[in-house]
């Protein structure tokens, strides 16, 4: 079989085409958002919010509301609870995050177990990329488009918030509002991605691409290009691998992203382990020769 056939064969199946489209869309939006999450130091918060939306999504399913509404409500609820626990007791933030998101996630599991449903809600937990329907695809597309447009239009304000919130305040902007905007986008994006890789692995798509891009450039503008490209390509590779290996697609998407990160971490010209070692050795040689 020629390499072209290897690439084309899966595309004969409509479910594979839908899977690829959904994955690429989710990968791009998640990767954009991840650039800010990594720089603000919100990785753990991303983990928390992406898990905590589960009961919201299940309840939205029960009452027939859009998943995004439930996710937004529970995303903000999680952050409010984390803040409340930290502010009213001696519990530190990491513990507060751990308590809140695991409890909400567990509540989601309980709700799933008592909800009679035609579609398997367990797919929300592990993702069901090969089972994405046209209706799912429409929902993913709309949410992703909203998140994408807001992120692109507000990118400079969000970057200012990430870099220097005090200056944002000095300009009459509200760091609190910008933080809430980022949070809302996080909840929205989590809904997009959970259909692809599932609640458990969403956080990978929300952290790894931004971290990878951060090791490749010193320009935020370039990060916003590198992260989505790297993420989309690794996701497509992951889906193909899952087709040919007949293995978990969500899992492979994340494994490929992780492998790409590892390679970049080692070999990035400026910020990679090998690259900076070589540069240090060159400097030593130069100074010895002098």
């Amino acid at each position, binding site marked *: 079989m020629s390499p072209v056939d290897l690439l084309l064969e899966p595309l004969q199946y409509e479910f594979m085409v839908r899977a690829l489209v959904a994955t690429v869309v989710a990968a791009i939006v998640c990767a954009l958002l991840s650039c800010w999450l990594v720089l603000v130091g919100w990785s753990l918060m991303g983990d928390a919010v992406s898990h905590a939306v589960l009961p919201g999504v299940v309840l939205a399913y029960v009452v027939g509301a859009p998943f995004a509404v439930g996710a937004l409500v529970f995303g903000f609820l999680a952050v409010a609870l984390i803040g409340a626990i930290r502010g009213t007791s001696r519990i530190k933030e990491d513990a507060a995050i751990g308590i809140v998101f695991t409890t909400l996630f567990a509540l989601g599991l309980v709700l799933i177990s008592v909800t009679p449903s035609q579609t398997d809600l367990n797919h929300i937990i592990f993702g069901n990329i090969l089972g994405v329907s046209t209706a799912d695809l429409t929902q993913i597309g709309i949410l992703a488009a909203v998140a994408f447009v807001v992120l692109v239009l507000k990118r400079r304000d969000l970057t200012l918030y990430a870099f*220097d919130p*005090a200056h944002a305040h000095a300009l009459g902007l509200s760091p609190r509002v910008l933080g809430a905007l980022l949070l809302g986008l996080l909840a929205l994006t989590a809904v997009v991605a959970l259909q692809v890789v599932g609640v458990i692995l969403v956080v990978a798509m929300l952290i790894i691409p931004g971290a990878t891009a951060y090791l490749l450039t010193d320009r935020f503008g370039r990060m916003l290009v590198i992260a989505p490209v790297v993420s989309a390509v690794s996701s497509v590779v992951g889906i193909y691998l899952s087709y040919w290996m007949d293995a978990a697609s969500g899992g492979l998407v994340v494994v490929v992203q992780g492998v790409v990160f590892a390679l970049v971490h080692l070999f990035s010209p400026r910020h990679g382990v090998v690259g900076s070692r070589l540069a240090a050795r060159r400097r030593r040689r130069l100074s010895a020769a002098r």
Partner: protein
Amino acid sequence: MTAAIDVRGVTVRYGEVVALDDVSLTVRAGRVTGLIGMNGSGKSTLFKTVMGLVRPDRGSVLFEGSDPARARKQARVGYVPQSEDVDWTFPVSVRDVVMMGRYGHQGPTRRARRVDHAAVDEALERVGLTDCADRQIGRLSGGQRKRAFVARGIAQDASTMLLDEPFAGVDKRSEATLVRLLRELADDGRTILVSTHDLHALPQLADEVVLLLRRVLFHGSVAASLRPENLARAFGLDVLDQGDHPG
């Protein structure tokens, strides 16, 4: 001389701790005012209160006679943060940082127009960082980093600039450059408020000095502020007196 910043009877408490106790202070326009005090004297809290980041339990702050929120909206307040409050590995260039000063003058997406680029170029030129404009912000020396943030305030066209410990981690030569720059900005009519515990820069830098230890202990000329009895009170010790009378 008009009052640029008017602090009236401000008290700030953090739980049981009183950080500022009935502080009243007038910072005058077109002058460099040094705010001197040891760690924990309330300098940072006073800065945050003036910026509106901390809400006082009592008292109020006025900016050029009006509400500080309005002054902020009009981009009149420039701010140079302490070094440890900045993420120096953040992927922004010097030019990007200075451009952030223009955000108050731009539309909702902060798209830079020709006038913004011109203002940024001019500000970079003014602080002598034109050649380093495209470097990542962390690839500057300590003094250059401070100048980059001062350039942001210039590009912003802020009438008041607040500098929090600008001389920490800055070598002597860069310090002299920075002092000269701040003097020029004051001569342009801007109000400069500098918090520092670096006393030897004061005579060249400041027009007047405020000594702070939760209350205003002294407000007047630089020479008078540096008298041992005033400094001893501000720094809460009598070391300086003992130096004069050995034994």
